[in-house]
C-alpha cells in the first residue's frame, strides 16, 4: 500500500514538488527500457533525467520519456556525474552493465540520491561490502533489483517452506541457462557517439573490441558469466527462504565446468558447470548453469516434499500437491517490477530498509562470486561469512579489484 505523505516528510524540506520522487536513470540500455513502463506507471514518480555513455541510447531514452509525459523536459547527460549533481533529483535507477553497479551506486549515495540498482549489486565481494558500508554512511535508501522478492510466486514458495510444508529443507536447486561464447575480434576505433572511457568505468583500461563490449557478461572484469548475472536472483531467493540474509554458506566448490575454446573464443566465463555451496547447518545449494534460457528454476527440497518455481512461466509446482491449494490467485510475475519499485518508493519516504537492502544484495552476490573464485582457482574453498575471508590467500586476493581512476569513490 503506498504511503501518502506531505513533502516535509520526504526529508527534503518544503521544496519537494507534489510529493513526487524525482528520478534519474543511469544506463539506459535494454534493461532500462524494458522496465521503464513500470517506473512511468508509478503516479508518484517523475522520471526527469537520463544518462548513458552511448549517444543513441541516451536519445532513445529521452525520447521515450518525453513521449510519455508529452513534454520535452527530460534532461539527458552523457556523463552520469552531471545527472547526480542535479539537486532536484531524489533517486536514481541504475541499469548499467554489471561492472558499474556498485560504483555508480556509491557515487549516487554520496551525491545524496536514493537508489534502485539492477543485480548483481557488485562484481567483487569487497566492493559489495563497500556499498553496504556506504549507504548508511550517507543515509541512502537502496533497493537491489532482485525483484523476485516482490513476486507472488516466489513469495508463496517462501511462505510454504517457512511454514514447514516440505519439512526440513536440505537442498536448494537452482538453474540458469548455458553461457554464450564470444569469438575473437580485433580492436577497432571507438565508434562515434560512445564515451568508451565512461562505459568502461572502473575496469582496467583495454582497447575497444565490439564483441567484448556487446558480450560483456562473458568476461571476468565486466560480467563474470551467467551464473553470476542471473544466478544472484536465485541465491537471493535461497538466502531469503533459508533466513540467512545476514550471513551465507561456508563452503564452495564447482564441477563439470566447460570453458570456451581459447583458440576460437575470447570470452572467459564458463559455458556450463555445477556450482555448489554448503551452509553451516548442512543445507546444500546447487546452481546449475546448463540447458536453455527457458529452463531456469529454483527448487527447495525438504525431507517431506519439494516446491519449485519455474522462472520462465512463474508456475509453481510442489509435492505434495496439496501445498498448491494454498496459493492465492493473482499477483504479477517477475517481469513486472512495479511492486519492487513501490517498495523502494515507500522506503524513500519512510527512510526504512527496503526488501532488498544492500546487505541482502551483497550476501546473495557473495555466493555467486565465491562460486566464481572457486571455479577460477579450481579448488574447494572454505568461507568465513563473518570476517568475509576464504581459507586461501590467493582466493582472498580475488575479493577485490582496484578500480580505475577517476571512476571510483571509495
Amino acid at each position, binding site marked *: *500500500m503506498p*504511503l*501518502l*505523505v*506531505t513533502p*516535509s*516528510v*520526504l*526529508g*527534503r*524540506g518544503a521544496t519537494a514538488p507534489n510529493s513526487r520522487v524525482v528520478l534519474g536513470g543511469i544506463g539506459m540500455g535494454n534493461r532500462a527500457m524494458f522496465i521503464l513502463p513500470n517506473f512511468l506507471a508509478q503516479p508518484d514518480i517523475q522520471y526527469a533525467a537520463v544518462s548513458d555513455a552511448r549517444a543513441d541510447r541516451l536519445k532513445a531514452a529521452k525520447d521515450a520519456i518525453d513521449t510519455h509525459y508529452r513534454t520535452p523536459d527530460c534532461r539527458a547527460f552523457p556523463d552520469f556525474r552531471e545527472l547526480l549533481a542535479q539537486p532536484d533529483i531524489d533517486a536514481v535507477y541504475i541499469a548499467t552493465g554489471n561492472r558499474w553497479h556498485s560504483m555508480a551506486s556509491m557515487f549516487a549515495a554520496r*551525491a*545524496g540520491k536514493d537508489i534502485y540498482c539492477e543485480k548483481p549489486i557488485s562484481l567483487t565481494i569487497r566492493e559489495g561490502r563497500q556499498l553496504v558500508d556506504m549507504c*548508511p*554512511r*550517507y*543515509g*541512502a535508501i537502496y533497493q537491489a533489483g532482485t525483484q523476485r522478492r516482490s513476486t507472488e510466486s516466489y513469495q508463496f514458495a517462501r511462505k510454504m517452506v517457512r511454514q514447514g510444508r516440505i519439512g526440513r529443507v536440505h537442498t536448494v536447486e537452482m538453474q540458469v541457462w548455458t553461457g554464450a561464447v564470444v569469438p*575473437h575480434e*580485433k*580492436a577497432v576505433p571507438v565508434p562515434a557517439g560512445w564515451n568508451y572511457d565512461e562505459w568502461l568505468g572502473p575496469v*582496467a*583500461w*583495454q*582497447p575497444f*573490441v565490439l564483441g567484448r563490449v556487446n558480450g560483456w557478461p562473458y568476461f571476468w*572484469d565486466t560480467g563474470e558469466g551467467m551464473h553470476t548475472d542471473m544466478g544472484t536472483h536465485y541465491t537471493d531467493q535461497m538466502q531469503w527462504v533459508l533466513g540467512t540474509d545476514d550471513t551465507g554458506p561456508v563452503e564452495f566448490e564447482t564441477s563439470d*565446468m*566447460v*570453458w570456451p*575454446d*581459447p*583458440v576460437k*573464443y*575470447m570470452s572467459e566465463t564458463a559455458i556450463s558447470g555445477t556450482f555448489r555451496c554448503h551452509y553451516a547447518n548442512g543445507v546444500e545449494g546447487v546452481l546449475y548453469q546448463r540447458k536453455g534460457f527457458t529452463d531456469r528454476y529454483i527448487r527447495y527440497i525438504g525431507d517431506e516434499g519439494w516446491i519449485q518455481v519455474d522462472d520462465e512461466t512463474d508456475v509453481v509446482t510442489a509435492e505434495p500437491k*496439496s501445498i498448491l*491449494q*494454498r*496459493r*492465492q490467485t493473482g499477483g504479477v510475475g517477475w517481469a513486472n517490477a512495479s511492486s519492487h519499485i513501490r517498495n523502494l518508493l515507500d522506503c524513500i519516504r*519512510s*527512510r*526504512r530498509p527496503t526488501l532488498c537492502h544492500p546487505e541482502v544484495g551483497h550476501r546473495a552476490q557473495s555466493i555467486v562470486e565465491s562460486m566464481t573464485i572457486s571455479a*577460477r582457482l*579450481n*579448488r574447494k574453498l572454505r568461507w568465513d561469512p563473518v570476517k568475509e575471508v576464504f581459507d*586461501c590467500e*590467493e582466493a582472498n*586476493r*580475488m575479493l*577485490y*579489484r*582496484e*578500480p*580505475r*581512476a*577517476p571512476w*571510483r*569513490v*571509495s
Partner: protein
Amino acid sequence: MKLNLFSACLALAVVVAPFAVAADSASATLENLRHYTSGADATPLRRYEQLVAQAVNDTNLRQSVEADLDRVLTGDATFEAKRFACKELAVIGTSASVPALANLLKDEATAGIACLALANNPSPEALTALRAALGTTRGLALAHVIHTLGERRDTKAVAQLIKLARDTDATVAESATVALGKIATPGAARSLAALRRDESPALRLGVADGSIRLAERLAAGGQPQRAAAIYTELLATGWPENVRRGAFLALLRLDRDGGERRIVSVLEGTDAALKPAAIAAISGIRGMDASQKFAAELPKLVPAEQALLVESLAERHDPVAQAAVQAQLQAADASVRLAAIGALGRNGDAAMVPVLARALATAQSDQETAAIEDSLTALNGGELVDRALTAQLRNRMAGPKTPLLVVLARRGSSLAVPVLLAETASSDATTAKIAFQGVGRLAGAEQAEAAVRALAGLRAPDARAEAETAVAQVLSRVGNPARRSAIVRAALGWVITAEARCSLVQLLPTCGDADALAALKTAMADNEPAVREAATRALAEWPDMAAWDMLVALYAQTDNEAHRVLALRGLVRLAGEENARPDAVLVARYRQLLAGAQSDDDRKLVLGALAGAADPDALKLAEEMLANPGVRAEAELAVRKIADAVKATHPEAAAQARQQLEKR
C-alpha cells in the same frame, strides 16, 4: 576445447615429453602471451590462468609463473599482455614483481594496471613503490596511486597525503582527503579537521567523506567520543542533507541510550531532513520505557509523520507499542488508520484477529475494508490465526462476515472448509459466492459429498454458477470416477427442486462413468424442461466416446436447432480428440457427420476437426469436399494439412492430393 581438457593435456605433456620440448613449448607460450592483442588465439592467457590456479599449492611453480609474468611487464610486450600480467599478479604477486610494476607507475597509461597488481600485493615493497610514485606522478595516475595507498591504509604516506589534500588538482586533492580518512592517524585527523574548517566548496564532499571514514575508524578503534565529535560537526546545518542524515544515524549508534533522547529531540523539533530517519530508527531502540516515550510523541506529529511512527512502533513488538498502534485504528486521519491496519497485519499474530475484525465493523471506506482483509490474510501464526478467524465467524456479534470469509479462503487453510461449507447455505448471494469459491479452492476429495450437498441445498440463486464451478473443482479431486458418480447420483435421488437437479445433472460429465451416463439419459427424459435442457447440454460436454451414439441420435433426430448444433459440436470435439489414433472407424464417423450436415457451417465445423486426422482415407474424404464451393477454402486447408501429415507414410496419396489442389 575445455580448459580442464587443456589442463589434462598440459599435465600429460609434463609427464611424458622430454624437458627440452616442454621448455620450448613454455617459452613459445610466454612469447605468444607477450605479444597478445585482441583477435589473437587466447590459449596463452588461459594457460597462465591455469598455472596461477595450480601455483596456489606449489611454491616453485608460483615463483616461475611470477617470473614469467614479470618478463611480460618489461620490454616490448603489448599493453594487453601487460594488463593480463597485472591481473594475474594481483593474485600471486610478491615483492619480486614490484620493481617492474613500479616502472609501470611512471606512465599514466599503465599506472592503473600497475595499481591493480600493487593494491593486492602484500609485500612492504609494494607500499614503498607506491609512496615513491606520490612524488613522481601527476593527474589520474597520481589519484590512482593515492587511492591504492588509502585502501592499503599506509600510515607512512600520511605526511605526503596531507600536502596532496591541498593540491590544485581537485581529483588529486579529493583522493588524498578520502585516503586520510581511511588511514586515520592522528595527523590525518588533524588535517581533516583543518579541511573541515576551511569549508572549501570544491572539496566539500571529499572532506565529508574522509571525515566520516575517519570517524568510523575512531569508533571502531575504541574512541567513540572523538568519533561523535566529528559526526556532531557534520550534523550542522551547513553540510549536505545526506551527510547530516548519515551523521545522525552514526550518532544514534554511538549514543549510550541507543539514541533514544536524540530521536525524541528530533521528533519534537522541526528538522525535516532528519525526522523521517529518526522515526525509522525507532524500531531498533531498546530502552526500557522507549515505546512509552515514542508513543507519547504521536499526538505532536502531523498525520503523515504519525503514519510513519505507527509503522516503526509496530515493529518494536512490545505490548506498549502495540497498544499505541491499535489505538490508531480509530485515528481521525485515514492515512494513519491505514498505516495502523497495515502495521498490525505485518507484525501481528492470532491475537490481532478480534482487533482487526472489530475494525471491520467501523471501516470508513472500501479501501479500509480491503486493507483489513489484506492484514488479516498476512497475519503470522498459521493455524492459530485460522482458528481465531473461524471463532470470529461463529461469533454472531462480531460484525460483517464476508470479509472474514474472504480472508479464510485466501489463507488457504483446510481448517476453513467446514466453516465455508456452512456459509454456502447463506441466503445472501455475496456470502454464498465467497463461501463456494473458498470450498472450490480448499476442499479435498473427502469433502466432495458435503460440497455436493451444499450445492443441492443452495439458497442464494445468484450464487449458482459459482457453486457449480466450485463443486466441479472439488469432484475433480476424487480420483475414482465411480466414487464421483455415486456421490452425484445419490444426490439426484433425493433432491427436490428442478434447479438443484439441473446443477447435479451438469456435474455428470465430471463423473464420466457408465452409471453417470445412464443417469444423464434418464435426465434427458425428465418431466421438467429445464432438467432436459441441462441434460442435453451436459451430454454435449461428455468427456469420451461413450456418448457418441446418444449424441448422434440427438444430432439426427432432434427438431430443436440449438440442440442439434450442441450435439454436432460435442461430436466434432470427440472426433477431434480421436485424431491422435486415426483409423477407419474414425473416418467413418467423420463421413457420418458430413452426411448429416444441414448447412455449410456444419460442414466447416467438421472439416476443421477432420484436418487433424492423419489418415489417407481422411484425406480422400477431405478431397471429396473440394467440390463444394461453400466449403472450398476449409476443404483445401484440410487437404493440405492431412497431406503434410501423411506424406512420410503415404507419399503417393499426399502427392496426388497436392496435384489436385494445384490443378484447381
